[in-house]
């Protein structure tokens, strides 16, 4: 029978099942970090259990790490304790750890692919909702809570109810200046932040095929912002090319055999999804979020919407509340919104292609005098690569701060936070109230839109932004 890629991944990882109960799924790769793992390890200790497969478990420190000079001491004693706890737990249970001072350190969803840990056909979990990123390789990857982290540590399995499948067909011709970030923001804007709840998304269509692996990661990364458990893209030659030769990728004969298997993962012709949605990108413009959830987006050429335009009363109230929090008036052109801060970073948009694209916009310009802008590479590897290409010099010459890798201002668990009332153009994934700091106001944009906003001190349409005139 014709099966979807999701069904193939699911079927091949079922360890045990019986009617009326969740299936027991085998987990091929378990990524852990300092914030959602301590209570899981404590649970193991209390029950006298071991980590079943330390060889399939990999840890890094990313969520609360400072991004300033790593030779400086960590001043936040509680963060330090979480990092030390992770180190101690990894030592006790024999888990590979990329700690703060490791060359492999970085955001968990950046280093997984980078190290070749993330491979097609795998089931991957992590105590972080953006684990959906890894689905870009044709893996089934999703975020879990700490109880489930403990469950995977103890059993290398998870009890899972089978989700439904949703195909999002992305077609059309992507206009210049419009990026993968705009595509996924556009999709969330169309279906809403709970539009894919209960589903695993497969992104399909011409646009996805043409996307690079990094662009596919950006798309899959934000699947959770539409409520989806996971997002995935069928592996193809681009995928194999990306994985090949990486540290943990299969080698030699194993590689040949792996590729043979991975080629069979794609959804069979004739397989059906529980739901399908078409999304055409031909008329898509660069998007800017105006509210306090990632579905509240408008084209940069648009205006802040009027809550009265929402038909549903609950949505109207939510929009009113969002505008109050964001301190925005209906009808204000997006290009009139002035910003105080710019954040280029996060597991959504801090890979080398993102930094290259932002640097190309920034080159030869200066950050607006009233703006403080930072670049936080997704990993130490990305940082080293960017430095080898001279991107750090471009950013620094323009007045950006060039930082060490981590989650940073995406969630503001480290010292990189907005002050109350500050407004930020951010390449991250969530514009929730207080996400980047209490009272902070976040506008989600692509890296090139963030870069241009840094220079102009307000949002500008990257498609028509006159680079020479403002130089």
């Amino acid at each position: 029978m014709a099966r979807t890629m999701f069904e193939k991944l699911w079927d091949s990882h079922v360890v045990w099942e019986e009617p009326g109960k969740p299936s027991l799924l085998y987990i091929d790769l378990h990524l852990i970090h300092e914030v959602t793992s301590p209570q899981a390890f404590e649970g193991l200790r209390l029950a006298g259990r071991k980590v079943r497969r330390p060889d399939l478990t990999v840890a890094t420190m990313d969520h609360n790490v400072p991004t300033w000079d790593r030779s400086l001491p960590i001043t936040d004693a509680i963060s330090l304790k979480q990092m030390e706890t992770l180190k101690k737990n990894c030592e006790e249970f024999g888990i590979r750890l990329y700690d703060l001072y490791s060359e492999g350190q970085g955001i968990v969803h950046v280093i997984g692919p980078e190290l070749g840990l993330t491979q097609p056909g795998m089931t991957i979990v992590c105590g972080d909702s953006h684990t959906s990123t890894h689905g870009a390789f044709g893996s089934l990857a999703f975020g879990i809570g700490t109880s489930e982290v403990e469950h995977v540590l103890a059993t290398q399995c998870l009890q899972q109810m089978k989700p439904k499948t949703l195909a999002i067909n992305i077609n059309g011709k992507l206009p210049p200046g419009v990026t993968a970030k705009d595509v996924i923001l556009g999709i969330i804007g169309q279906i809403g932040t709970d539009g894919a709840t209960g589903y695993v998304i497969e992104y399909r269509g011409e646009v996805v095929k043409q996307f690079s692996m990094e662009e596919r990661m950006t798309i899959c990364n934000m699947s959770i912002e539409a409520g989806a458990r996971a997002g995935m893209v069928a592996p193809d030659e681009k995928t194999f090319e990306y994985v090949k030769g990486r540290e943990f990728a299969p080698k030699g004969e194993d590689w040949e055999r792996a590729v043979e298997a991975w080629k069979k993962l794609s959804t069979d012709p004739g397989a059906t999804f529980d739901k399908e949605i078409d999304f055409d990108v031909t008329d898509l413009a660069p998007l800017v979020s105006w509210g306090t959830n990632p579905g509240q987006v408008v084209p940069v050429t648009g205006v802040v919407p009027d809550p009265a335009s929402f038909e549903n009363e609950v949505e109207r109230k939510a929009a009113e509340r969002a505008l109050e929090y964001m301190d925005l008036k209906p009808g204000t052109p997006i290009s009139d919104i002035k910003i105080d801060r710019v954040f280029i970073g996060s597991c959504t948009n801090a890979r080398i292609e993102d930094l290259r694209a932002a640097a190309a916009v920034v080159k030869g310009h200066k950050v607006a005098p009233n703006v403080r802008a930072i670049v936080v590479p997704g990993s130490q590897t990305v940082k080293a690569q960017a430095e080898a290409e001279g991107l750090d010099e471009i950013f620094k010459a323009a007045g950006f701060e060039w930082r060490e890798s981590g989650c940073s201002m995406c969630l503001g668990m480290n010292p990189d936070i907005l002050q109350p009332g500050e407004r930020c153009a951010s390449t991250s994934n969530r514009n929730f109230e207080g996400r980047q700091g209490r009272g902070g106001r976040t506008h989600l944009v692509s890296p090139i839109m963030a870069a241009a906003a840094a220079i102009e001190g307000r949002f500008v349409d990257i498609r028509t932004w006159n680079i020479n005139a403002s130089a």
Partner: protein
Amino acid sequence: MEPFVRHNGLVAPLDRVNVDTDQIIPKQFLKRIERTGFGQFLFYDWRFDDKGEPNPEFVLNYPRYQGASILLTRNNFGSGSSREHAPWALLDYGFRVILAPSFADIFYNNCFKNGILPIILPEETIDELFKRVEANEGYRLTVDLEEQKITDDLGLEVTFDIDPYRKSCLLQGLDDIGITLQHEDAIRAYEEKRAADPYAHLL
């Protein structure tokens, strides 16, 4: 985990859609390495002002809702981050039941791991409950998991759906890991098969 069978409690209304886990427990409170003690930080940025004083305009600070153990709210509750600190904070504050038209997946799942019962009800029922809470100070509900029934003292009686497996785990307060480990033989057999040929399962 504490079993959940039947619960009678005061209802508090939180009339907002898309309440995300960043609101339920802001990130500055995720640095603890224990599971307990998060209740004091629940809805922190809404409950407290910039100086850390209680915000009298936030609904959970109204005198009439003190001691509430049933939270009534709107669509897509618990969206965003997978942080289990969100249900830990709700439980530690005293909530055992959450009523909403829909929940985000990971949050919904995390509730069951902690003895919290999230109940999905039709929008009309939720609207009716908001009206009743508003109109009746001290409004309480009885939630009976065994019978899958919610009742009040004013004649309301609604039933709800729940996955039978989740229901039985919650009723008995079962430990998931213990259940999975009963299938140790199946796990080992799967691992042996994979070790013999790492890609055969995909072919």
